[in-house]
């Protein structure tokens, strides 16, 4: 919290409110990150108990979303934050909603894991799931780290990573579609894998958004809908 100096206000209670919001956001992020990792694990290991746990956690995430939003509204109403403080509150509300959607995707993956556990393993796609899943959960982790430490470099790394994930996702899709055409009997099970991959890709996009919020928070530049290179250029000048 060096550059924004969110703890340097004359009003101590304002400092405390901002710090509380940051802390709660990080806690929520931690839960969501764990959800993603566990959902992937449940899918690969066909562990329906673990999947059920992931789904159960979503409620906690939803509660966290509501209470963090309330906190932000209260800060907006009572403190009228400006500049860095304002960007912080805005970034928190946006990140909260992105995290909640990541949580939703994790639950969805967990649902597919339960389906697959019941109907038997899908013949293909596990390698891709494992691979992309690993990258995506690292992206979520890095995006949250970038937020916690206000590191633009880490955020930029996440943006680059997302582009790589998108490429891998496209090639995995092509492979799975080919596989379905070759063996129509596995279509329903392979679709679960595809939906899961689709969710992972969305999680990557959402992690990407969080990284963009970090850039907005630290640099004050709105970099949504830009490619990683464009963002980097904007940040460096």
């Amino acid at each position: 919290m060096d550059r924004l100096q969110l703890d340097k206000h004359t009003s101590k209670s304002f400092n405390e409110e901002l710090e509380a919001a940051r802390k709660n956001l990080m806690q929520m992020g931690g839960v969501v990150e764990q959800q993603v990792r566990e959902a992937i694990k449940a899918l690969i290991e066909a562990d329906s108990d673990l999947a059920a746990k992931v789904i159960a956690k979503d409620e906690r995430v939803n509660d966290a979303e509501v209470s963090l939003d309330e906190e932000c509204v209260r800060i907006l109403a009572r403190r009228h934050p400006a500049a860095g403080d304002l960007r912080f509150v805005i970034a928190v509300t946006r990140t909260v909603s992105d995290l909640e959607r990541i949580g939703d995707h994790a639950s969805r993956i967990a649902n597919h894991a339960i389906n697959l556990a019941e109907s038997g393993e899908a013949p293909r796609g596990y390698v891709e799931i494992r691979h992309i899943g690993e990258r995506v959960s690292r992206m979520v982790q890095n995006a949250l780290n970038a937020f916690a430490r206000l590191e633009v470099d880490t955020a930029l790394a996440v943006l680059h990573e997302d582009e790589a994930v998108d490429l891998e996702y496209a090639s995995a899709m092509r492979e799975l579609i080919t596989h379905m055409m070759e063996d129509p009997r596995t279509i329903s099970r392979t679709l679960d894998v595809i939906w899961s991959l689709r969710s992972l890709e969305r999680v990557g996009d959402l992690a990407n958004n969080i990284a963009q919020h970090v850039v907005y928070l630290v640099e004050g530049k709105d970099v949504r809908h830009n490619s990683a290179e464009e963002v980097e250029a904007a940040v460096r000048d």
Partner: protein
Amino acid sequence: MDTTFKHTSVETSTGPVASEPTTLGTDLEQEVGETVGDAFVDDPRMKARNVDVFYADKQAIHNVSLDIGRNEVLSMIGPSGCGKSTFLRSINRMNDTIDICKVTGSITLDGEDIYDRSMDVVSLRARVGMVFQKPNPFPKSIYDNIAYGPRIHGLVERRAELDEVVETSLRKAGLWEEVKDRLDQPATGLSGGQQQRLCIARTIAISPEVILMDEPCSALDPIATARIEELIAELSENYTIAIVTHSMQQAARVSDRTAYFHLGKLIEVGATDKIFTSPDHKLTEDYITGRFG
């Protein structure tokens, strides 16, 4: 709820939504009624019941009932002339100095009626201190300003004790570090914000139970204001504070509960969070959103 955006600021009022004809007067007539919200608290320090205040024939306050809780910060907001200052001044009988002013109803401090004959106004003001709009230090030294209250009330016996009172008061007001080397210099040489903190320290020096503040930051710059607000937050641990402010942002920042006055009536009281996020009364919402006032 009417969501028409009729802000008083120029950008919005020239926008398309403002072209809808809305008359302020009719809104007000419909809406003013009984106080909404929680005017009463469990553990009140001061209680006002059915208070009316008259200036000669003109009624300035209409039937206000309101509690000030122990160690809470109560802010009173409202448009100019809404009676918030008048109400504040009737709490420590500053209105007594105005001949034509008459107060009815009851105001109690820890259960004692402050307008009762047995209540001496001097001792009341030693229990309910007041900080004014304009910093008004006496044209004496910093030390003498703080020592004034304890001296006239005979609160201290020895010089050493008085020194301690002065230091403690200044420390509590967050002014000690800035003035400890020049206590014998005139208080009028301090900056506006320092003067106002000195006035607060002067009030603390008689260790009142309640501190009333009448727009304490209206003459100060934003930095000085922030310091005073932080001071209010610190003081609220030990004192009951009622603050009148024409800055609703300030009310939002410093207070636990907020009371909204309008044309001498208490419209709405409630937790500050509630008032500033979802007020119940339309007048309150109009005021805090800048649609009039």
